């Protein structure tokens, strides 16, 4: 176990499927260096095949006895999708504009398609996914080189790019298929929870830049953090496919909102929901019943009384309050390791268990200090 665990909560009622997270992640990390095909963050339409294709059926993770399960490494063309390019020159010089590879599969192939009979009971919702930074990572257990680790200070799961030999067992071992092979450097790479941003006071790109304001980031042991409250206090945020046994640290507020169904005559079926509970149970486990009950009753309370702390949390009045990155903690970790602490580039999100709001001022003064130390 790492000393502390950083976690993310994603609210699926608020997710609008815009993929700003996906693109923010891409420009931050994966538009280069052999990572072009990778989506460390993706958003899939559920129900659907997902990304990579049918990832839930590709094995990995642990059985109830704790044994690592065999898994399949997805194929670039058929499962991830080739990151096709275009002949932009044709636009200037004539000829037809087209992709260099015929697109047959991609990371958002079944966008908004959903399932069911239109218009009676069809439905869909969005499922954004990053690496779950599991407490018991399948990738880590699968690595024959022991080259995958959890950072001691915050539980972020990283591939050691120094020691990775590109055997790819990790890909088979990860039940979420959130670790990728980089063909350019012949090593595996994955979502790093934007730890370099976090250490300097910026939330992960997918979270800070989420315009639906769906993502909370903080430490699970920080009782003032939204992630603590949503996961442990209200228990409305649940891990995805916890039956894989990896103890994921990305949590989801399950979708509760959908319009009523219609009967064959087009009449509204009062009190019905389009979201099949069986599907939600498959994704989020049995606790989803409790979570949905809590969410519904708090919504009702809010509607009737105007009060509900849970709704206040999920609404998140001020965007900056969605993140508690505890910058003082990271600075202490850095100093304890004998290095120098990077000064925060932003002071809006730095509060945390070991960082009071009043530290903001301290940091601006402290920054020069750090720079001086560094120069020495």
């Amino acid at each position: 176990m790492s000393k502390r665990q950083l976690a993310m909560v994603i609210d699926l009622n608020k997710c609008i499927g815009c993929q700003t997270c996906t693109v923010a992640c891409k420009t931050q990390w994966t538009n280069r260096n052999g990572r072009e095909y990778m989506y460390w963050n993706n958003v899939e339409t559920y129900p659907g095949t997902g990304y990579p294709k049918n990832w839930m059926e590709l094995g990995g993770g642990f059985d109830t006895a704790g044994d690592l399960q065999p898994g399949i490494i997805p194929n670039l063309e058929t499962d991830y999708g080739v990151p096709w390019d275009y002949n932009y020159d044709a636009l200037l010089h004539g000829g037809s504009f087209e992709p260099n590879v015929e697109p047959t599969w991609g990371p958002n192939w079944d966008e908004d398609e959903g399932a069911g009979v239109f218009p009676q009971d069809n439905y869909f919702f969005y499922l954004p996914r990053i690496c779950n930074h599991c407490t018991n990572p399948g990738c880590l257990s699968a690595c024959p080189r022991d080259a995958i680790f959890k950072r001691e200070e915050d539980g972020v799961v990283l591939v050691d790019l120094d020691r990775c030999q590109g055997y790819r067992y990790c890909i088979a071992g990860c039940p979420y298929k959130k670790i990728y092979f980089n063909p350019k450097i012949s090593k595996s790479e994955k979502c790093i929870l934007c730890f370099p941003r976090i250490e300097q006071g910026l939330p992960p790109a997918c979270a800070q830049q989420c315009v639906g304001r769906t993502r909370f980031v903080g430490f699970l042991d920080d009782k003032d953090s939204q992630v603590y409250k949503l996961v442990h206090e209200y228990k409305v945020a649940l891990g995805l496919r916890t039956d894989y046994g990896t103890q994921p640290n990305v949590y989801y507020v399950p979708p509760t909102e959908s319009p009523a169904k219609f009967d064959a005559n087009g009449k509204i079926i009062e009190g019905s929901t389009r979201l099949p509970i069986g599907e939600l149970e498959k994704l989020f486990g049995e606790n989803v019943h409790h979570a949905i009950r809590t969410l519904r009753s708090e919504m009702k309370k809010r509607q009737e009384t105007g009060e509900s702390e849970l709704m206040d949390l999920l609404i998140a009045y001020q965007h900056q309050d969605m993140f508690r990155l505890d910058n003082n903690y990271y600075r202490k970790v850095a100093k304890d390791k004998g290095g120098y602490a990077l000064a925060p580039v932003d002071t809006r999100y730095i509060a945390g268990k070991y960082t009071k709001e009043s530290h903001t001022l301290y940091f601006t003064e402290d920054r020069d200090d750090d720079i001086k130390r560094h120069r020495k």
Partner: protein
Amino acid sequence: MTKAVNSKRRNFLKLSGMTAALVASQSDLFAKTAVMSIENGKSSYPNAGYTEAMYRNEFAFTYGKKEEHGFAFHCVNCQGNCAWEVWSHNGVVTRENQSARYPAVNAKIPDFNPRGCNKGVQHSQVMYQKDRILYPMIRVGERGRGKWKRISWDAAAEKICQNIFDTMTDPDRGPEKLMVHAGTGLLSESRRGSVLRFSTQLGANRIYPSSYLGDMFSGAAIAYGEGNVGCTWDFMYNVNTAVMWGGNPSVSRIPDAHFVWEGKYNGTKVIVITPEFNATAKSADLWIPVKAGSDNILAMSVINVILEQKLFKPEFMKIYTDLTFLVDVETRKLIRRCDIEHAQNEEERHKYEEEFYSWNEAKKEPAVMPGTKGSSVHSLRLGEHGIRPALEGTYEMVDVYGNERTVTTVFEMLKKSAADFSPEATKEITGVHPDTVVQLAKDIALPKVVEITTGFSLNKYFNGIMTIWNIASICGLTGRMGPYGGLNTENEFTLSGLEALSGFNGKYAPRFGSGFVSEFMRGSGMDTFRRYFGDEDVRRAQNGMSKDEYITVVEELLVAGRNGEVNNESEHGSVAKPWWLPTTALIVADSTFRRNKGSEYRRAFLNRMDFYAYVDYRMSEAAQFADVLLPAKSHYEVYDLRTSPGYHRFTNLAQPVANIKNIGEAMDEWSMFTFLAKKLEEIANRPENIGKAKVKDDKRYAKPGYHDLTIFHQEYTNTDKESRANGEARLGTDKMAVEAALENCEQYEPWTMEKMYKAGGFLQINEKAAKSSPLYSDRPYSSMEYHLYRFEPLDTLSGRQTFYVDHDIYIRMGAATNTGMEGIRPNNREYPYVLMTPHARWSIHSNYKSSRTLLRLQRGVPAVALNRVVAEKKGIKDGDTIRVFNSLGEFYAMAKLSSSSPADGLVMEHGWEPYMYKFNKGHNEVVPVSLNLLEMADGWGHLKFGALWDGNQYAYDGAVNYEKASV
């Protein structure tokens, strides 16, 4: 075979220059270390530092230096207007991150952060994409064949300005034959001004974008005398019911959608009315799958329920609407004061024409109502005049000729009209169950605050004008205004003083043409119309009028609008939609061949155009067919400002990153048009030209009676004698323009560029931006409070919300008051599907459509969402190429089999450039053009041609079929 694989792999691994540098700097990336013993990687790891350093370096590279960051917004036609912090490394932009520093308006209302979307977040990638126009170029082959020669800026300017000069000074052509126009790829307060200024100074023709795009709220204009009504989007957080009618904010209002869902957590009931199931519908409380194009009939059905169940608010209606006004039962004309009283003189007669009566129950006699256009009383207060207007009843009046006139109220007329639209009667045509209509009516009428947001898809149907007018009338009947909600089209704030950039203190005025009519004429729309629509289609859509009669009427109206002549002669404002057919064009950021409907537009346009220059930063379809191409800078390379429209109360700043490296020879528009102005002035002063360089023009467009091209650059930059004497702001570059705007616009006080930069790339506009309501410091904005609380008249003929238009055409169309009308889309078995092309998640019209980053998150080629069941019956599988066709044409696209598409419809995000389709045939090949007489009507009360009252180019009126393609 091996070779093919290799090349694929090479492409797969392709690196940008920037990345290569990054990799090179980390050559130790490939190092291997010796054997290491790992106890438990879950709790501690001895070699963490290597990897951590690598990613930290990479982050540091993209982040660059904070003090070198720029700020920007994307001045495209999403109207989102979001503050972005632009990161850079050594003058090269690396990525963008939302500024996310907008202050909260109220601690109990969600803030506007982190405003942005999936498209804005990747402009950094597109700005270096290979479809950038890098240099000025001249066509050396046939138009559109892709044969270009790179030329100098000077040579390009010479070519363009010589053409402008020749057109202007040719006695047979003149300014009328010149078009200088900025499209919606350039929507900002500062940068756009450069093109508008140039256009206005020349007396050149330009047209209203919202009209030609089909984004004009003509139905709202009828009701309120203002199309842009509604709220800032934070208002949505506190409403009881939010209706998204024809709208899909989770896709096309991405930065603001969170207010809807946070509102839902706060207790809002969210209702979505769209033919397709979409990203907004999926989380709504009630989704109403209305049949495409029948929205106006559904709205009438709601009105029917409101009237039948007496859910309306009579006291509101008596004061704030024209429902009490008296109408002649026989002629269906409103009773005007001039019908009853003799005027003393012409001026009084004109006033009497704009005064109206209600039946005063207090005195049992007709009363002239205060607050109308012609009234000397500029208030809607009735008490002090002793008027208690009757909503209902039939009365007798004696007119000026002594004749008895039987009159009734507008409300009675509305009741009569609405009687035909009971929920049972409309069920078949709207596909909406009667119980649902009743539910909808109650959800709108009963709660305290209800906001009905209309989507831009509604105007894309032939009868969209009726849809929005009917929805406005629902709001009028239920007292929805100001803090109680109402119609939300697109709020706008007041910004004054910006004419300092694009205007000349009235010396020159723009030669505006109608958007939808001009495009109809330029694309020879009547040929398409005649070819496509049948007599029964026209009769269905225009109250029984035959196709022949319709064409006769339309042609008369078109003749009236030719070259704006009839309007020039009119004393009391416009009476027709003016249009010109230019032969020389300078167009900026407008993918005109992509957006115009019908298969003939491009050919017709190019045939008429002797010379056509195009300015943009990317190769659009419009760029491909130009004679001269000029490279513009894009959003991160310029100084600029943007406030509009009014989804929020902030003005964003564009300021480039430090030491930005120029891309090719791109120029910002202010510098570019200043350069062109200089060249035009130089040409005008040449000995052979100087004699004809004062170009005569109508005084409406040039107060002195001429445009003096010999001082063109001086006037453009405000360095001429007159401007200097008046102390006008010097102009000439993008930065100068931003400074001038900040100095001249009082709503921007007291901000400067430095302060904006420090705040995070924006300013908060001050209270003077309030238009029809106060802009409170701690509350969201919602329009028309001054009307509600201060009894200020609206800018309508009646001074009130309009339920009655007695324009002859409206009477003839059976649409003098709200009614339901079927669309013009052919209704036959051969072409049973409607093609819906709503605003896109993945592009802003055609902006960003060619983005590699974004295309990889779609199907990579144009795709159509088909109803799964119907498609399977046709033997079509997901991923198949299909041919969509009708009698006008065809296009090919990839099939997406979806449970979210209706059985009778195809859903396809719009904006694809024709060059992205097989055989270069865009989807507009199957879209017909037409003109609705209700939008052609002009010269009535507040319905006179201008920015408020133009019309719409429709997009959803083609009926299609589809099949598996054999290509």
